[in-house]
């Protein structure tokens, strides 16, 4: 008997480096399940990740994969996708990687409607470096660099993605494994730039600093405060201790960069004849 996701993993790398109760493993599992249910040709899937805890995910997926520098997975993935449109290029990275150092690449890839699936593990903090505050750290939250409480306002990632023109935007917590899997499947089948935020437990760092020492406590928090509201206004979906609005926010049709590029190239070449 072997684990159903085994063939999607680089077995020799499991167990992974992530802490007890970290949501990254759940996200990887949901991604594997999505690939499985869609019967995706694994030869044509490329997983690209950045720096941070979840950055290691590319090393665990049994597909072609690339672990870029901090913040650059989307830019790298853009090159991959344009060079070989055959490939499904999935970026899986963290909130700091994608929205702090990599924010510029994110907003422009979304604007271009680049054919990429971006899955963001939002754990509210920089875990790999030991718990510094980042673009999603809740105001007042304690981190090693906000010892007196965070005074920075946060990014509402789904709002940002929607505003930048992503054609599919969803948010789930790591407890919503089924719905997350469905969203990943939907994204994988969608043309253009899709974005899925996964609110993910980091009990070891964020939890410890913010009175949620155990992973179960964090998951219970998700269970208690999450509220499914599909296609509600992402602008009103700020994450607060009292409420996490989850669900699909955007599911739109818009010609992707690849499609427009293909059409343009074809036009140019026929003129050339």
């Amino acid at each position, binding site marked *: 008997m072997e684990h159903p996701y085994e063939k999607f993993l680089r077995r020799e790398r499991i167990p992974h480096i992530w802490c007890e109760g970290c949501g990254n493993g759940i996200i990887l599992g949901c991604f594997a399940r999505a690939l499985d249910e869609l019967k995706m040709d694994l030869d044509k899937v490329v997983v690209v990740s950045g720096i941070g805890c979840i950055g290691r995910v590319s090393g665990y997926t049994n597909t072609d994969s690339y672990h870029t520098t901090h913040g650059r997975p989307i830019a790298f993935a853009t090159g991959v996708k344009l060079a070989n449109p055959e490939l499904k290029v999935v970026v899986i990275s963290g909130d700091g990687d994608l929205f702090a150092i990599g924010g510029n690449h994110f907003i422009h890839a979304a604007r271009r409607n680049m054919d990429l699936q971006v899955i963001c593990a939002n754990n509210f903090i920089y875990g790999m470096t030991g718990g510094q505050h980042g673009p999603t750290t809740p105001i007042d939250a304690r981190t090693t660099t906000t010892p007196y409480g965070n005074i920075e306002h946060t990014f509402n990632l789904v709002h940002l993605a929607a505003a930048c023109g992503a054609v599919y935007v969803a948010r789930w917590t790591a407890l919503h494994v*089924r719905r997350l899997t469905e969203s990943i499947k939907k994204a994988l089948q969608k043309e253009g730039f899709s974005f899925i935020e996964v609110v993910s437990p980091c009990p070891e760092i964020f939890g410890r600093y913010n009175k949620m020492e155990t992973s179960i406590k964090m998951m219970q928090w998700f269970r208690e405060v999450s*509220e*499914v509201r*599909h296609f509600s206004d992402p602008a009103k979906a700020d994450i607060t201790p009292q409420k996490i609005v989850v*669900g699909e926010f955007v599911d739109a049709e818009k010609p992707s960069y690849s499609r427009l590029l293909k059409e343009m190239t074809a036009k140019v070449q026929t003129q050339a004849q």
Partner: protein
Amino acid sequence: MTEAKQTDNKPSVSEDVRIGVYVCHCGLNIAGSVDCRDVADFAATLPHVVVSKDYRYTCSDQGQELIKNDIRENKLTRVVVASCTPRLHEPTFRRACEEAGLNKYLFEMANIREHCSWVHLYDREAATEKAKDLVKIAVARAALLEPQKESEVPIIRRALVIGGGVAGIQAALDLGDTGYKVYLVEKEPSIGGRMAQIDKTFPTMDCSICILAPKMSDVGRHPNVELLTNSEVVDVKGYIGNFKVKVLQKPRYVTKDCTACGDCAKVCPVTTPNEFDVGLATRHAIYTPFAQAVPATYVVDRNLCLNKENIIFCDKCIKACERKTIDFDMKPQTLELDVGTIIVATGADVYDPAALVDYGYTKLPNVITSLEFERLINAGGPSGGRLIRPSDMQVPESVAFVQCVGSRSEKGMLYCSNVCCMNTIKDSLLIKEHWPETKIHVFYVDIRAYGKGFEDLYKRARKEGVLFIRGLPAEIVEDKKTRNLWLIGENTLQKEVYKINVGMVILSVGVEPRRDSDVIQRLLTLSKTPDGFFMEAHPKLRPVDAPTGGVFLAGCAESPKDIKDSVTQASAAAARASILMAQGKIRAEAITSRLIEEKCTGCGMCAKVCPYNAIIVNKERKKVELIEAACAGCGTCSAECPFNAIEMRHFTDEQICGQIDAATEQEADKKIVAFCCNWCAYAGADFAGVSRMQYPPNVRIIRTMCSGRVAPKFVEHAFARGAAAVLVAGCHLGDCHYINANYQTQKRIERLWKKMEKLGLNRTRLQLAWINASEGERLASKVKEMQSIVESVTSEEIEKSKKMVERAG
């Protein structure tokens, strides 16, 4: 809304008041114990009375003609009829007055039948004296009556039917076919109700679901009918013709696109006994109650389903559903409906025989209920129509039916459930049809085969060899080995003890009011009869109308019925509702409150007590404002106002005090002045009369719309006038026809009691009683009980109370 012109100065008897009095014999109903001639003569002596006659049947056409002529010829400006209760014939005589050009609010009745002749059958003299008094009171009030103009209320041409059983379905179909928009609200996921569970119907032996299913789909498809299943009425505001109804629709978690293929249920990992099959079959968390369900759309039982809150733990059904119709994010919806009429067809529950321990239900596997039997014998049921007994799944060689389980007995309900006898006879024939060899015993008290074709069916059963034994078993004992059952009891015909062994016992369970019927009762301010079923406006003449205007009753909600009667009553209710809606408007009683501006200080006490929020305090103007459309006329505001700044039309202080004066003119010290609310206490007194309950003749009942109208000053006035005792009676707390006005009554009486104690008066002379329309007995005994108080009151105390109350007041 057009409003009657009113003069603000205090109404007083104008010179040209000309009253005609008509004392009715009502055959011998009144004349039997009252000397009507004598009463008429007495009436002639009363102030302003210009005509006084007695007549055999005043309500007859001739009687009405008589009155009309007198109005024209004798220029009558007021009419008093002394006969039955106004709840019966006031409309009749009012119409007569109008036809003769007299404003119908200038008509008054003296109830000398229900409140006099019938309750004093054996004391002609006292009854006659009381009748005179009652007429005097009526005349006194009549003199102060004023013409009123009724405002016209438009009626919304849409109907709400509550309950999707056969009655509700029929009512909805009839209304829909008539062309009215209908909302059919059903609590369960499917319509169909009890009839859907039954195998065959009596006496024709039709397949129940075969004749019901087409009706179900008709109503489901009907362009004018909007089906709201899984839904409950949670709030009803407004009044006849203009109800605002809130319906809570619970989510099915399956969209309309469901094709009812059942693939979801196949994979669902959790199961529970299916309620529809009375627990004899299994269903899954996602299910359809039965094959012919309407709507066919499946439904998820979230209490059973593994998916809690918004977390999907198990996605088997979602994955199995090809059309992707399962949506766990559906939320409950509250629909707001504006309807003109409401039909209550909420049905009934079946009696749970577990309470009768001697019969061993839930202890002995082979003791089943008649409802379980219906599922067992049904070809589509859990046993595929094989009559098997639960212990060994074998067809029993002999069975016994036990009748009146939960009916006609102190142990269950006192009443007869109407359907059980015929149901058993039908069932016995079904057994004979499939397994002719089966020995069948029916243990009964009386066989009631009163309906069309019933007797024939009964005879057939006997002919087929069904054994009918009079006398219910005292106990049922199981043979541990065979699991057979011994029925032990007395055959009351042969006066001998029987001990009969059968393979299976079917308890013929009775019909009981829905355990949740209080909710609807409260929302629609309905009343219940002692058996707990909803009470009709009049048992004979308005059998499908509820006391609340615009509300009608159908099916077992009103009383236990078979299918035919339910359907009949449903059509009747639909017809009654259609009449209202066809008119498109209705004239509302002019009995509403009127503000006397200059007296109002804007203190807002009236606003606090108004059950309908019909009063707004205008802080700038230091005045209140009355919203007449919202006013239901209970009069509790008027009773509360310390400045007499609110007048109740047709129930003014002057009119009521006038009645008190008349009532206490003679022998006040021997009299009880009783204030009874129109809906419960007064009707209760009528009921006492109808049931000929005898009580002392010294009570004088003054009718107010609500006990909340009874201002303390009325009570004080009665004492000041030397009354021996005062009774204030209204609906039971919680049953008030005016939502909660009678809570104010309670407060006021309690205040009065304190005051009396302070004044050193015997507080027992003031009594408060909650009496509903069916509690004639309670009223009668109350009066008897107060009689002793009346006798104990000394003349000194009466004198004392006169002075003190006057001083205090």
